């Protein structure tokens, strides 16, 4: 299993931990993480406020950590190289360079996926990026992707017995489909990884 760890300062924590409420948010966060990993900025120890970890195995996931909140998303790209020179790949685009990640971000930010009419969709798509079949296929793949969103909260402020337990997992982000699973104890960073890793022993609810 390949794993990479990056530290986050306050600014990055604020960017990554903005609420995720839609597929677009999840894709946007994933692409921003990809850009950050490509940069691999050096952060002074005193400024470290969070962490980002990428695991590439049978499970491809990215994990974001602060002291009391973690979340994880599916990471839909393959990776090569060392932490100082990471290269990301997808089947459609080959190497995802800075331009391709910016183009995908521009498409997500434009809201093109919400256009109602196919003509308007195509027009807007071509306005935002120069159309080619690869970028369209990659974009299509991303918006159809299962994003695998899971969040862990240690939330003393909003704690409400068994309705909103001090430690809990939220699975899925939309109001109507989200599942809350209470935890008896505080979860460590590794426990979250372990609980979603299909290669390690399962956790049981009962």
């Amino acid at each position: 299993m390949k794993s990479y760890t990056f530290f986050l300062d306050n600014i990055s924590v604020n960017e990554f931990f903005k609420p995720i409420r839609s597929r677009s948010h999840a894709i946007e966060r994933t692409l921003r993480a990809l850009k950050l990993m490509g940069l691999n900025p050096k952060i002074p120890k005193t400024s470290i406020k969070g962490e980002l970890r990428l695991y590439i195995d049978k499970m491809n996931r990215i994990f974001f950590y602060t002291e009391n909140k973690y979340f994880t998303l599916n990471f839909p790209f393959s990776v090569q190289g060392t932490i100082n020179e990471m290269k990301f790949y997808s089947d459609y685009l080959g190497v995802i360079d800075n331009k391709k990640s910016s183009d995908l971000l521009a498409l997500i930010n434009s809201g093109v996926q919400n256009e109602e009419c196919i003509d308007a969709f195509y027009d807007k798509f071509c306005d935002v990026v120069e159309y080619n079949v690869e970028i369209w296929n990659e974009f299509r793949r991303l918006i159809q992707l299962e994003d695998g969103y899971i969040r862990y909260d240690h939330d003393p402020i909003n704690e409400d017995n068994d309705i909103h337990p001090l430690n809990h997992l939220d699975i899925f982000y939309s109001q109507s489909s989200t599942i809350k699973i209470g935890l008896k104890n505080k979860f460590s960073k590794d426990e979250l990884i372990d609980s979603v890793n299909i290669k390690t022993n399962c956790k049981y609810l009962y």
Partner: protein
Amino acid sequence: MSSYFFLQPGLNNVFFEEVKNYSEVHKKQIYIINQPLGDSKYKYEYQKAFVILCPKQKITFIDLGNSKDEFEEFKLDFLEDLGSISDKYQYKDQIGRPRKWIKDLIYSVDKAPKDLDRFFKQTIINNSEDQKLAELLITLLTGSINDIKRVGVKVPNTLLEKVKQRILLFDGDQTRFIYDHEQGNKVTIQGLSGTGKTELLLHKLKDIYLNHDESKTIFTCHNKILAQEMRRRIPEFFNFMKVEEQILWNERLWCVHAWGSNNNKDSGTYRKICDYYNLNFYTYSPSRSFNDVCTFAIEEIKEMNKVNTHGKLFDYVLLDESQDFPESFFELCELVTQEVLYIAGDVFQSIFDVDFVSKVEPNFLLSKCYRTDPKTLMFSHAVGMGLFEESPLRWLDDEEWKLCGYQVSHNETNTKCILRREPLRRFDDQSEGIESISIFNTDNTTVEESVNITINKIIDEFPDTEVDDIAIILIGSNQFVFSSSDKLEYSIPRKFGWTVNKAHENKENIPGQLFISNKNNVKGLEFSFVICIADRIRSGYNYRNALYMMLTRSFLKSFFLVPKSSNEAVFEQFSDGWNEIYNTGKMEVTIPSVNYQEQIKTKIRQIGKNQSYNEFIESIFEELEIPEMWREPLFESTKSIIGHNFDRENAIEIINFNFSRMEK
């Protein structure tokens, strides 16, 4: 006509000629009117009284009819109306009631002054607060309304405040464009970027909309994003100009890009024309240019005699960014327009067309760029055309230079062309001491470091700098542009606490965030400072045109960050060229041989045959970072293999293959 002088249409007197000459000799902006411009409801019985308006001078009433009582009545009525215009545009809250400013700012004489020098000495305003107040009154009287909340009445202390509180005052040419209605049924207006073309079109639109009740008008441009932006700006502008009539979108007024899409008949000018005349509508396809579809439409309309059967679709067409269009689009618009077709464009952007002069021939030539320092403009032109280099990319004859607002002379031996631009008092001379271009060698610094140093320099020199005052624009290979902007997006918030807006990802200018963009999202934008970052300077026309565009976005200063090591000769040439312009106010350029001038023209002509195809291939060269020397042979070989085919994948494959063989 001069840009310094404006005479209200229909007025005539020997004295006005004298004032006109005076304005040109002394380079003073002077207007003579007998009613406030901008609203036709202000009319007066006495026809022999006039008002002279000139910044920093008192507003002066002149009686040329020797009728004291009627003159007094005229003055009272005129000032009452000025008071109500001031109220209408909410100036009154800031500048106060007329009785507060009449005493110090209004002057009157009962006959034409014989000695104009003496007259202007008598009416001069020395106090800078009063000067500003008088200028604001002139803007009201000439219809050049400013947002009083932005401009304010206080005299700005710093240069940056001056930039932000600058008063927009139309010059003679600009005012004539809006208020002179006898201009024929096709009016072209040409000007460099920053000369206020779009603003003028908005004023014209308002004038048409208000004064022609049943008229149908369309505002159109090539770029869809720009059209959307204008559609947002028009209601704002109408509200600001206190237009009380409702905007009847898609009934009386359209604001759309030129092409349009199948699903909506009101989505584009060409689309609308096809719908109205029942023509075949063609959507975009790589093998069909806009020129093709316009030509089909013209043929269909003419063959079927559709104008006779259906009538004209529009009364007025306002067409912006004309340099983006083929001639056939103008012809199509003209064919379907009842009253006037207004065409506005930037001369320089079509300068790589070989038939520059014959194509331009504007009714209005706006040569004064009020945004950019004239020296910055000269430098940007020289960089765009490669004038500092041994082999220029473009050469203009004297007439063409003049069209671009230059004063042209030659040295005695006629081997050098000496080019100057008239200095402009843009921000009351305070900006004159500033070196408006700064070239920075980035050899020993990372992109983050060089931007960091530049922003610190700006803040040191202008401590009241805010995040919206600066833009960073990158040009070069995709890898350079996009990886640099990613690095800056990370470093700038951490150095300066500013949030960064990458316009190539967000497609808009977000207030309160630092604007970073590639060359594609900067059209129409302007900033106090622009930081232009390049890697290896290329000679392609698109590249040079983009450099010109980037460098001319600044009010005060453009920083040009470029590595010397990859641009050895050019770096020195640019630096020397700028020093000459900065120190002497002119540039002396060696005139290329007639033979070489012809070569340039031939090259442009060859490439210009199918501009869109060329741009397509050029963009692939940029993407693959093909060295300049190989581009021409590659262009030819690609064209001979795939013809005018826009299949990108195919073209890339062929260029890559040919290039690999060439290298061997």
